[in-house]
């Protein structure tokens, strides 16, 4: 068992404007990148946010060893129901995803 955060360099989550959230997984090495690409499905990310996987945009960027996801923000930034103005804490939740056996 390994959580995502333990095999990659860094997980970053940020607003991309008030209506979108973007998650950058910096794998740092080609090995970690390959492992994340094969073990982390778009549906796993969608399930974290309890949304349909079809609204999640995915970018596998092998040149950067980065896997990026963008999705509509769970709540509009700064609205009464929002809990995190800059959308940065989602990285912690995503870093704790169990992606199976460590490489």
């Amino acid at each position, binding site marked *: 068992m390994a959580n995502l955060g333990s095999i990659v360099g860094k997980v970053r989550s*940020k*607003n*991309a*404007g*008030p*209506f*979108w959230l*973007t998650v*950058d997984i*910096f794998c740092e090495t080609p090995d970690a990148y390959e492992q994340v690409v094969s073990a982390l499905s778009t549906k796993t990310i969608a399930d*974290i*946010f*309890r949304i349909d996987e079809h*609204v999640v*945009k995915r*970018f596998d*960027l092998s*040149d*950067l060893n*980065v896997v*990026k996801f*963008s999705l*509509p923000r*769970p709540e*509009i*930034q*700064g*609205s*009464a129901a929002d*809990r*995190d*103005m*800059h959308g940065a*804490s*989602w990285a*912690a*939740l995503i870093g*704790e995803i169990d992606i199976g056996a460590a490489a």
Partner: protein
Amino acid sequence: MTKVLVPSGALGLNYDQSALMRGLEMKPDIIAIDGGSTDSGPAYLGKGMSKYSRSSTKVEWQGLMEARAKADVPLVIGTAGTCGTDSTVDWMLDITREIAAELGQTIKIAVLRSSQDSAKIADAYENGRISPLQHAHEISRETIENCSNIVALAGAEQIQAAINTGADVIIAGRTTDTAIIAALPLMQGANVGGAWHGAKIGECGALCATNPQSGVIMIDFDGDGFTVTPLADGAKASPHTVSAHMLYENSDPNILYEPGGYLEVTDAKYVALDDTSVRVTGSKWTTAPYTVKLEGASLAGYQCISLVLLRDARYVKNAQKWADDIVEKCSAKVVDRLKLSPDDFNIELRLIGENASFGALETRMIDAVEIGVLGIVTATSDALANEIGKILNPYLLHHPLTQSEEQPTFAFPFSPAEISRGAIYTFSLNHVMTLDDPMDAFTLEVHDIG
């Protein structure tokens, strides 16, 4: 060919003074700095006020005004005062006048205004000139008219109009982060894709390099692309740090939409010139109909908050049950005593130490030592929010888990326990507006000072 000196990602975040001086020695053609974004939330736009302190803004702006005088080139700030409304542009203009008087500077200031008249925007909506962006919420004329402030994001053309006045200092309302950097290179014949790409890489200052907090970078634009160089001691850019910056706060790492077109970086080539500078070519620009993005914020009610701490292990363990019970009982009491409908107000208790970050989406459960309970009352008026906050107070102080136990007392760190937050706002536009002429939604004025 065109050298743009970027002191930092935003005025108010500070910059490295010696790196700025190094930048001046390299003879920049313009100094460009961003003054804001939506990232600090809707209240700044809703109220038309700056997030950063006036004193910090003044100290940093004075340093840039002195640098500008030394280099004898234009100094431009985009999205002045966090949100770029007319009120924050005037705030920035006032600071600029004050500094100019103190320094004895004689300068020409161009002011570009981005605030929009909501009735005109509503008319544009009804005339089919406003289109939704992806996943935009349904809007109506009323949504637009309810915005306390609406701004349009200026592009390069409006900044170029300001540069063409011959101004020494340009104070711009809301602009895209990139427009203030791309404007002059585009005027001087830089590669169009390269100008926008370099502007995106540079918009957060040294965030595209190592030692990101040092701020200062130089971007040198030419007919094929651009070269980016961080200027602080020890700050280095590499093809990796530069190309990775396209990911930053951008939902699509390959495409960036701007007024009048879009940038594509899929085929861009990043080459290290040495261990500090990176050269980028192959960025592609595609023109599109001229649209500007709109941002609007509207009143979303009034809030009164409270904070109480649970330290008793049994209450910590049963905090969610305790909180749910309070919300139910207190809401019923509010309906009864104030003769309100449940739709007129909301009481929420967030458990800090348990799930305050993600609510029901939290996946990790551990035993906490203590829990901070953040009580949030939202209502339709300030008076009502505070009144409900006072009805909530006895529950937060003494609510027992069971009727059979001795009355507990919890820890309030403050008196008064209720903290009035006043008006709250929400972002309510996620749309673009089509313009026949880039200046149609913007005004430009010139002030001679000193």
